[in-house]
């Protein structure tokens, strides 16, 4: 990797200030994604700004929700009793991230902001849209792990974050600090669909912005479920996965949030499945029909139609999981 200078700021403001440079400055959290990208010359920053020293706490908020520092390690997120109690699907997603070593090092902020896993993006030789080029090699190439929703282009990546999906399902907000102060952004507005103007990024963060906190609202009377499908039982990214958060009135679903991961350039909220679920009893038949609804508008690429079935099953099983039904 290219040599870089290194800054270890002691406050959020210092971190933001340290990102201002004539060269390229980047934030390093756990480094599990960034260092691999640097070794492969996908990114060659002149300066790294360490944000592991920033807020790594998980605290209750006055409204009964939780505020999670970006520097929280994924293993600590998993082991936190209050997170597990209030947001079981965040807990379920956390333990499925990577491997023990990655969870021990990787941070919440790093998981949310990691770059796509697309093999063209990850290969120095393929100068795709995301690296300033003028094509997406997945279109006529090997696209078995690419998007089945949001395939309008120009880029056909799937968003790589496992935690972003339950965060969005629970209605999280992201606190961002930049040179002009702080702002809170709803998860739905944080992640951005690719356009020719913003295809180099997957979210709204500007060059001198840092994600400091994930703020989860009080969950309310909900049942939630999370289900991931992957080739290997471990150390693998999911082919498709889903988190559902169901607001219950007795055994009837009064409203639902259904979010899918690894299927689109952003964590993909299925309005069709949510509309279907409202007013339905929580049972296996409802789960299966919601799965059908979730993929009704899927537009797979040449080599990934198989993922439609997997996404459908992930939604169905996430709902069954929420209902406490056996999914095996």
């Amino acid at each position, binding site marked *: 990797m290219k040599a870089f200078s290194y*800054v270890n700021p002691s406050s959020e403001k210092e971190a933001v200030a340290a990102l201002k440079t004539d060269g390229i400055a980047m934030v390093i959290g756990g480094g599990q994604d960034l260092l691999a990208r640097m070794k492969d010359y996908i990114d060659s920053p002149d300066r790294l700004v360490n944000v592991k020293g920033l807020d790594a706490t998980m605290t209750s908020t006055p409204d009964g929700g939780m505020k999670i520092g970006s520097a929280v390690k994924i293993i600590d997120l998993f082991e936190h009793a209050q997170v597990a109690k209030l947001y079981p699907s965040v807990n379920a997603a956390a333990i499925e991230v990577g491997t023990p070593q990655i969870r021990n090092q990787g941070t919440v902020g790093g998981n949310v902001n990691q770059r796509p896993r697309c093999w063209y993006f990850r290969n120095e030789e393929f100068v795709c849209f995301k690296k300033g080029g003028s094509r997406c090699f997945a279109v006529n190439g090997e696209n078995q792990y690419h998007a089945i929703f949001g395939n309008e282009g120009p880029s056909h990546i799937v968003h790589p974050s496992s935690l972003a999906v339950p965060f969005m399902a629970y209605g999280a907000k992201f606190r961002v600090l930049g040179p002009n102060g702080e702002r809170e952004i709803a998860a739905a507005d944080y992640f951005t669909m690719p356009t020719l103007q913003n295809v180099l990024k997957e979210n709204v963060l500007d060059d001198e912005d840092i994600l400091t906190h994930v703020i989860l609202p009080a969950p309310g009377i909900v049942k939630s479920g999370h289900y991931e499908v992957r080739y290997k039982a471990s150390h693998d990214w999911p082919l498709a996965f889903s988190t559902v958060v169901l607001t219950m009135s007795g055994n009837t679903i009064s409203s639902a949030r259904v979010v899918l991961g690894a299927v689109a350039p952003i964590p993909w909220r299925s309005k069709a499945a949510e509309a279907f679920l409202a007013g339905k009893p929580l049972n296996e038949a409802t789960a299966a029909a919601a799965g059908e609804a979730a993929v009704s508008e899927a537009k797979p690429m040449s080599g990934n139609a198989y993922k439609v079935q997997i996404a459908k099953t992930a939604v169905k099983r996430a709902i069954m999981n929420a209902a406490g039904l056996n999914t095996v």
Partner: protein
Amino acid sequence: MKSAGVTSLATAVTTATVAQAQTGPRLVGPGDVPVTLMVNGKRLELKIEPRVTLLDAIRNRADLTGNKRVCDRGTCGACTMIVDGRTVYSCSTLAIEVQGKQIRTVDGLASANGAMHPVQQAFCDTDGLMCGFCTPGFVVATVAVLEKHPNATRDQISKGLDGNICRCGTFVRIMEAAMKARTVARG
């Protein structure tokens, strides 16, 4: 890291980029900077660039070559070390970022008289290896699992060793070794 050892370049840039006296946190590098590591209970004073990983610092500068550099991308586990009680991929950890932490490598597991750690002994006894290149990482990861869960179940061991890969496919024997070390370690 194709260029980790380019010393002439490193020397050239060192003087030009020592931290400017400005307000705010100190900027170090890209040339050599002093880095102090506590490895297997011993203090290591190094002068290395910020880009040097924990693995390369320990293998190339401290001559502790037990942990192996295989994928160098955090996907194989051969470089697994224990930092403050938790396993990490040392290839995906910058040495500059683990100063002040207790680092343990496979080299430090045996006791002073040379007797192997019970986990190392169990790997030998159960023939838990073939080519042996992944073994240092597996041994360290197994030590970490058993220190956290002295009575670990098969599932806990399996989950704890998720981040390590053996291309020879000796997983069954590795599981045997871990189960055996568990009883020995409890002793």
